[in-house]
C-alpha cells in the first residue's frame, strides 16, 4: 500500500533518532532544507548531512524527539515539538556543559514520489543558547514583556 505523507515523515524521524547515517531512503538527493537564521540552508542530502546533521550530532547527544503534534494536508506535513538532548560537544563556541536541554522545533515537509523534496525548518537556537547561559537578545527579547516570564522562557514549547 502506498505510504501517506505522514508515514514517510515519521519513518524519517525515527531514522534520525536512531542516528542512521544514510538518509537516502527518506530524502531526495537534491532536496532543500531551508531553516531560520543561524541554522542555514542546505541544498541536497550531502550538504544536509555535512552541514546540519553531523554538527548537530556532534554538539548534542542522547537525542530524543518529543513531537507534540503532527498534521498532514495533501503532500505537505508539519509538526512541532522539541528535542531533548545532552550538550556534549562545542555549540557556537560554548564548550560542552553536559546539560540536558530542550530544543524546540517546527518542521514542514513536502513529499514527492515517496521521499522528502523540501523541508522548511525552525530550530530555536536562541533557546539552546539561553539554556547554556547566553542571551543573544541582550535583555531586549520580547519575552521580557511577558507579565510573568516563564521560569525558563526557552521551554515555552514544553
Amino acid at each position, binding site marked *: 500500500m502506498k505510504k501517506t505523507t505522514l508515514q514517510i515523515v515519521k519513518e524519517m524521524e525515527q531514522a534520525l533518532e536512531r542516528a542512521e547515517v544514510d538518509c537516502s531512503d527518506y530524502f531526495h538527493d537534491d532536496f532543500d532544507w531551508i531553516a531560520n*537564521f543561524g541554522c542555514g540552508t542546505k541544498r541536497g542530502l550531502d550538504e544536509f548531512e555535512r552541514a*546540519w546533521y553531523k554538527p548537530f550530532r556532534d554538539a548534542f547527544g542522547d537525542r530524543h524527539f518529543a513531537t507534540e503534534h503532527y498534521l498532514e494536508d495533501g503532500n505537505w506535513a508539519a509538526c512541532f515539538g522539541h528535542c531533548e538532548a545532552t550538550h556534549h560537544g562545542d555549540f557556537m563556541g560554548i564548550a560542552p556543559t553536559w546539560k540536558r536541554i530542550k530544543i524546540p522545533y517546527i518542521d514542514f515537509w513536502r513529499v514527492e514520489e515517496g521521499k522528502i523534496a523540501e523541508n522548511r525548518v525552525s530550530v530555536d537556537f536562541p533557546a539552546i543558547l539561553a539554556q547554556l547561559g547566553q542571551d543573544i537578545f541582550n535583555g531586549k527579547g520580547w519575552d521580557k514583556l511577558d507579565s510573568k516570564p516563564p521560569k525558563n522562557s526557552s521551554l515555552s514549547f514544553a
Partner: protein
Amino acid sequence: MNQNRPEQAILSRSTDLSKTAETKAVIERMVDGLNDHRIEDIGEFFSEGFRWMGNTGCGTKKGLKEFQDNWQKPFQAAFSDKVCIDEARLYMGEWAAAFGRQEAVHSGTFMGIKPTGKKIEIRYMDFWKVVDGKIIDNWVMVDFPHVAAQLGHDLFNGEGWEAYDRGEKNPPQPEN
C-alpha cells in the same frame, strides 16, 4: 501471518477530521483580520484565554490582552506597511499550520535598533488549534535573529551555521 502489524489510525487519533472546514474558515478570516492591522476586535478569532507560545526572544502571551499589548502593539510600533504572506498553509481537523513571511518597513525601534526605514522580511511558522470557532492555542516561531541580521546585527556573533553552507568553516564530523 503478518507479525508486524502496522500502526492504525495514526492521522485521526487526536484529530476530528470533520472540523477541517470550520478551522479553515477561522484561519482565513484571522489572517485577513491581521493583515487589516486589527487589534482591538481580534477576539473574533482568538478565544479570551488563548495561549500564544513563541520562540525565545518572542515570548509567551497568555490571553488576548497580553497578545495585543505585548506582541501586536510592539510589533506595530517597530514595523509598518506590514503584509503577511503564507507560503504554505495546511489544515487537518481542529489544527492548521502555516509558514511564510511578513513584508514590512522597519519604522520604529526594534530591540534597541533605531528605525532604518528598510523594507525587511519577517519569517514565521505557526500552528493553530481551533475550538468552537476560535483559536485557543497558537505555537509560533518568528525569526527575530533574521530581522536583526537584515538590520546589520548578527546576534549569533559569527557563530551561525550558515558559515558551513558557505564553506567558510568546516563542520565537525562525528563518528556516529
